[in-house]
């Protein structure tokens, strides 16, 4: 503050030593009439939809009753179980395939490529049926330490698990590869310079950072898997969809039981989405960005957006 006096300020005043802050701004927020009109229109539409379902021929008391029917809850549990297990296979095998695909070893990388080519290139329904009918081509299986009739090894559960899990691995491999490639090569270099070997570098440095990129699409895969698992009825594994189908056709309440199944699927995906959200927060540590808003915060932000102008550069989605 030397030389030419700054006329815009009082003499001797340093920036930032505002003793009396200026009065806070009180202004009428902009009214968003368009938002109100469209919101009302959409709500009306939804109400009409709900009204027509309530007054349809669906017996809602039956839906309520069968929601907790043994066979249905068992089916839901089996759906969850087969989904979790196939995703576990998919994730582990997928990471392995991704690492193989990116390795310098030409054999490993080509084998991984071939695996992905085959399992992505054929419908999962066909793969399920193939696994289930494996006994047509091999009537016994011999693993050296264990030998049995193919039909005794490939139960509906095993066929479902192999069909879904091995297929998923091909997709997870590509997701994992994208994640690994997203990590700055300088990270590997720094780890090597510290004397860490390749395996340690991958496990301690590269994969934890790749996880941030891997998790969101994997969550998508998981939810897809919850629904794709309804296909395993073709190998006679009694998961949620098939259970609903059987129960519905026995008591001739087919539509009611499909509504029951729908409710269960929605419940499972919702619970899972919340889990995914917390997993993402875990792997976001150190990312320096502000954490994404919790679902509740997001809802609140959306509600307030009706009343006030959306923030500039804010994270309202």
């Amino acid at each position: 503050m030397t030389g030419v006096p700054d006329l815009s300020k009082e003499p001797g005043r340093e920036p930032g030593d505002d003793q009396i802050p200026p009065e806070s701004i009180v202004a009428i927020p902009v009214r968003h009439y368009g938002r109100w009109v469209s919101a009302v229109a959409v709500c009306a539409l939804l109400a009409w939809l709900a009204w027509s379902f309530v007054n349809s021929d669906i017996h809602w008391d039956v839906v309520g009753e069968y929601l907790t029917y043994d066979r249905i809850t068992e089916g839901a549990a089996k759906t969850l179980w087969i989904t979790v297990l196939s995703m576990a296979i998919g994730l582990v095998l997928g990471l392995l395939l991704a690492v193989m695909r990116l390795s310098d070893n030409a054999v490993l990388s080509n084998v991984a490529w071939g695996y992905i080519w085959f399992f992505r290139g054929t419908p999962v329904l066909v793969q399920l049926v193939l696994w289930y009918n494996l006994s047509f081509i091999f009537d016994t299986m011999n693993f050296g330490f264990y030998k049995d009739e193919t039909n005794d090894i490939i139960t509906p559960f095993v066929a479902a698990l192999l069909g879904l899990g091995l297929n998923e691995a091909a997709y997870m491999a590509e997701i994992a590869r994208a994640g690994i490639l997203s990590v700055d090569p300088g990270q590997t270099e720094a780890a090597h310079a510290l004397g860490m070997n390749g395996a340690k570098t991958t496990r301690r440095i590269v994969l934890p950072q790749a996880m941030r990129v891997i998790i969101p699409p994997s969550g998508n895969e998981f939810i897809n898997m919850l629904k794709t698992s309804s296909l395993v009825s073709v190998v006679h594994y009694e998961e949620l969809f098939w259970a609903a189908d059987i129960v519905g056709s026995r008591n001739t309440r087919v539509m009611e039981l499909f509504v029951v199944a729908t409710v269960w699927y929605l419940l499972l995906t919702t619970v899972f989405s919340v889990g995914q959200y917390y997993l993402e927060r875990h792997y976001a540590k150190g990312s320096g960005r502000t954490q994404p808003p919790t679902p509740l915060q997001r809802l609140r932000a959306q509600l307030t957006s009706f009343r006030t102008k959306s923030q500039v550069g804010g994270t309202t989605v």
Partner: protein
Amino acid sequence: MSGGREHPMVLAERVHKAFGPVEVLRGIDLKVEAGEVSCVVGPSGSGKSTFLRCINHLEKINAGRLWVDGGLVGYRQKGDRLYEMKEREVAEQRRDIGMVFQRFNLFPHMTAAENVMEAPVQVKGIGKAAARERAEQLLRRVGLADRMETYPAQLSGGQQQRVAIARALAMDPKLMLFDEPTSALDPELVGEVLDVMRGLAADGMTMIVVTHEMGFAREVGDSLVFMDDGVVVESGRPRDVLNDPQHARTRAFLSKVL
């Protein structure tokens, strides 16, 4: 430390390195004694980073010989045959050589303390508690004792680079390589990193520093190496090279940077 040694800390003899058809290093000769601070300067693309990376075998050399502390880098010699080292042996060699990068390369998913502890715990198998104590010591030494639990993204560039130096020191290296450690920093942050390096030099650490900070080279360096186009054009005491360069290329370069 240097009493009775018969070999220098780093010895390079006619080191060549090519990327495909492009010869980046074309016969580097260099000797760095234990305890010496050697500053390497030269125009962009002259091969300074490549040479530094060869010293800890991040790059394989194509011809010539390179020794660190008397041991051949990346190879074992039996008779007049060379055998490539296994990954484990290369990793073992690198433990004794610390490296500091232009872009810091801290592990972003770990706190400052975890960054420093990582290699001692994972590579040397030191207990967590002991490693943590040592990390605290080292972070104190670089002036960041109060930032143990901070993630790199929340540190300034200068602070990140000081954590990176502490991380390299945690392996108790006998040689430290610096690749333009202050080039990615805002001017007002350069000093704090150079201060740490000055301290290291005073403690007798052997250092090879690629830098554009001529003031640092003059004041701290025991020797100055001018590289251009893949060869060492001129080297000597920093004062001599800077005040009285012998080669036209050195003069041309210095006139641009001084």
